[in-house]
């Protein structure tokens, strides 16, 4: 991947050789992933097969997409607790559009084509994200509180919309011209699930944006020291609103992928997914205080969580134990991080 080498040289300066310590630090999530794959392939012969890896990757896609949005917000020094609810809200609204939008005044039911459903859903996600951003940047509501509130509101609206029920048949009908919704969840491109392709595209684009665009620089700067960035001419408020908007859009994308994979959209989908996304970002080495973190790390974090929980399912561990293991891995990964940093700090 080309953006790997770019971000490395940009951070270290082209004159310096690749440092081993840095590799180990960054590689933490990578080694965890290798260990997970090794252990589970030993325990189950089905684990390390191409088809299983692809299935697991398509599960990771959901968390992964959310985690990239979360990474941007965390780089900015914020947090977005609303993504799980926005995912559900967007899924439900997409479902509703697939079932037809009734316009009583005209006595017609509109069946928008799938591409329009996708665009509208992303727009709704973006709007909710922009609302988060505006609350935080303009009205100075702390990010935790603003997104917590929006988390409840979005979940509530999703429940209201369906009356607590789930939209089931989302495949559309040929005579209405709105088939194809399951394409996202079921089709493959050169054997790779579409959801994984979507994740990879978003990851590469975000990676490029962070390492090469001026927006990326603005984001790192305003997350590291907002006052200094502001005085250097960085439009800190615009950056803030933009990252929450992107996070909202990505939550909508994740909602579309999820309801397409399940061919149903329920208002309780994605509960606690925001926490999984935060965990992926943190395992990936980002600092919750802002200014530090990479897409590469976050992707590894998402894969660690996804491959672990699917592995536990495959070897037949009860779902209660799964929760325990996932929690332990999160703490362990971050613990290793602080031990390594701590040692360095004391020595220097």
């Amino acid at each position, binding site marked *: 991947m080309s953006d790997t080498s770019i971000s490395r040289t*940009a951070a270290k*300066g*082209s004159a310096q050789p690749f440092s081993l310590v840095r590799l180990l630090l960054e590689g933490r999530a990578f080694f965890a992933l290798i260990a997970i794959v090794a252990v589970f392939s030993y325990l189950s012969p089905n684990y390390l097969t191409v088809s299983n890896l692809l299935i697991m990757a398509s599960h990771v896609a959901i968390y992964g997409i959310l985690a990239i949005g979360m990474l941007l917000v965390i780089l900015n020094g914020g947090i977005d607790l609303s993504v799980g609810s926005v995912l559900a809200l967007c899924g439900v609204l997409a479902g509703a559009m697939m079932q037809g939008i009734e316009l009583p005044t005209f006595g017609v039911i509109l069946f928008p084509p799938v591409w329009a459903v996708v665009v509208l859903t992303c727009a709704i996600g973006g709007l909710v994200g922009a609302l988060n951003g505006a609350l935080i940047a303009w009205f100075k509501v702390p990010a935790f509180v603003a997104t917590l509130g929006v988390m409840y509101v979005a979940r509530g609206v999703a429940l209201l919309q369906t009356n607590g029920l789930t939209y089931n048949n989302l495949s559309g009908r040929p005579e209405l011209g709105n088939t194809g919704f399951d394409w996202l969840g079921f089709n493959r491109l050169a054997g790779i699930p579409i959801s994984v392709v979507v994740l990879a595209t978003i990851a590469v684009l975000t990676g490029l944006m962070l390492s090469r665009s001026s927006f990326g620089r603005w984001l*790192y700067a305003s997350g590291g*020291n907002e006052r200094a*960035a502001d005085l250097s*001419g960085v439009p800190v408020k615009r950056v803030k609103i933009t990252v929450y908007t992107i996070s909202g859009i990505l939550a909508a994308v994740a909602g579309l992928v999820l309801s397409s994979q399940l061919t149903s959209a329920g208002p309780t989908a994605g509960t606690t997914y925001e926490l999984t996304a935060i965990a992926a970002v943190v395992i990936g080495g980002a600092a919750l205080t802002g200014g530090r973190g990479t897409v590469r790390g976050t992707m590894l974090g998402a894969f660690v969580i996804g491959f672990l929980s699917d592995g536990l399912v495959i070897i037949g561990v009860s779902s209660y134990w799964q929760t325990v293991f996932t929690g332990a891995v999160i703490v362990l990964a971050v613990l290793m991080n602080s031990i390594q940093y701590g040692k360095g700090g004391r020595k220097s």
Partner: protein
Amino acid sequence: MTGTPAAKPDTAEVVLAARNVAKSYGQIHALKGVNFDIHRGQVTTLFGENGAGKSTLMKILSGVIQPTSGEIMLDGQPVAFTNSTEARDRGISIIHQELSLAPNLSVRDNIFMGREIKGPMGVDFAEEERQVRKLLEELEEDIDPLTPVEELRLGQQQIVEIARALSVDSRILIMDEPTSALSATEVEVLFKVIRDLTAKGVSIVYISHHLEEALQITNHAVVLRDGTMTAYAPRAEIDLEWIVRNMVGENYDLGSPPGGYDFGKVALSLREVTVADPKGGDYNVVDKLSLDVRAGEVVCIYGLMGAGRTELLETVAGRLRSSGGEVVLEGKEVSHLSIAERIARGLALVPEDRQRDGLVQTMTVGQNLSLASIAAFTKGLFTQRKAEQALIDRTIKEVTVKTSGGGAAIGSLSGGNQQKVVIGKMLATQPKVIMLDEPSRGIDIGAKAEVFRLLAEGAKRGLAVVYSTSEVGECLSIAHRIIVMHKGRISAEFDSTVTKEQIMAASGESVAA
């Protein structure tokens, strides 16, 4: 005792000493085998360029960091501190160069952080407050112990830092640039406190780039250069010239204002700029201030702390909102523009507080230097790496930052070199008007000369410079025109033939020194 350049006419006993102390950070050798003595009841001053290793040595003596090799001797016995609390328990405390206060906590809580006074019911806040009041009284500073530190101006924060070190009752007190943000009066008070302390037998180590000031108080002078001790002498044998010669090897003259050309049109014009107190007081920190600065002109704004200089400059830069008046840049009103737009039009501010307003600690030296000029090396969607690297390399050379390269972490630079990064960042935007708020904080005499040279060269090419300082000497060596600010207004205006005394009198300062 080995390796000391001059024979020591020791009169007072050595309480704390470093023996062959070395410290390396990977390839960087910050200290290369240094011997250093602290005498009981005396002031030892450490001189040296930015990055010479002064702070590193002091951090080692106070247990903040550990030496790579060498020994620390306390009262003749070797000791090895593993942290600063251990050193504090043995009577050694330090005032750090970079402030280490918790901004959200009150003055009282900062001073007693980690050593709260226990009463029968938890912390005895009343007793703490009483002690803080007494300390601040001693320092002749009018600060309420319950104010959150973030509401204090930089100089007052520095006073709090000093008060915290004094509150420990240590017998060895290390002061790493304690006066960089203090006014002349505050320095006088601090010196009185230092004299009282030494009379009581407390030993002091003092570091400052204000050389004349340090000479007033010191008993011994030690010069560090590139991690080695190059000279040692008692006060009686040294003068300013001796220090500078040993520090940098040549003598610097900060010179006189650039001349031999005519000023251009008015570049920056302030018309009745008024700024209400940002903390909500019912007075104006800047009061109907009008000022014209022409292209090529260097205007110095002199004033005491709290005269409204920082607020004025921040308003012109776009950080603070003015409550009245106009800011006109090259004939165009810019009051409604954002900071970014003002920078793009050539109006740049070098802020006073480098930690809070100048640097992004999570970014590298290079990324900090290029932060304000991103647009200059962005083509289409992407930043151009080569162009950025060229800009970084050029700026590092221009402002003489001592670093292993643009990729180094900003925290690995010495205090003065961090300051140079803040200056370099704004100079790299190629401004037409540059405003500098106390830019010489913590930079050594050579770097100061370099910055003055850069400003002078810029001025000759038509750069308008607004230079805010509380050091009269700086005004005299750079400015064509000197404005004295007092309580938000211009209280006097001089040309470069003025004397120090006249300027100080106009600022409302007692000319005691």
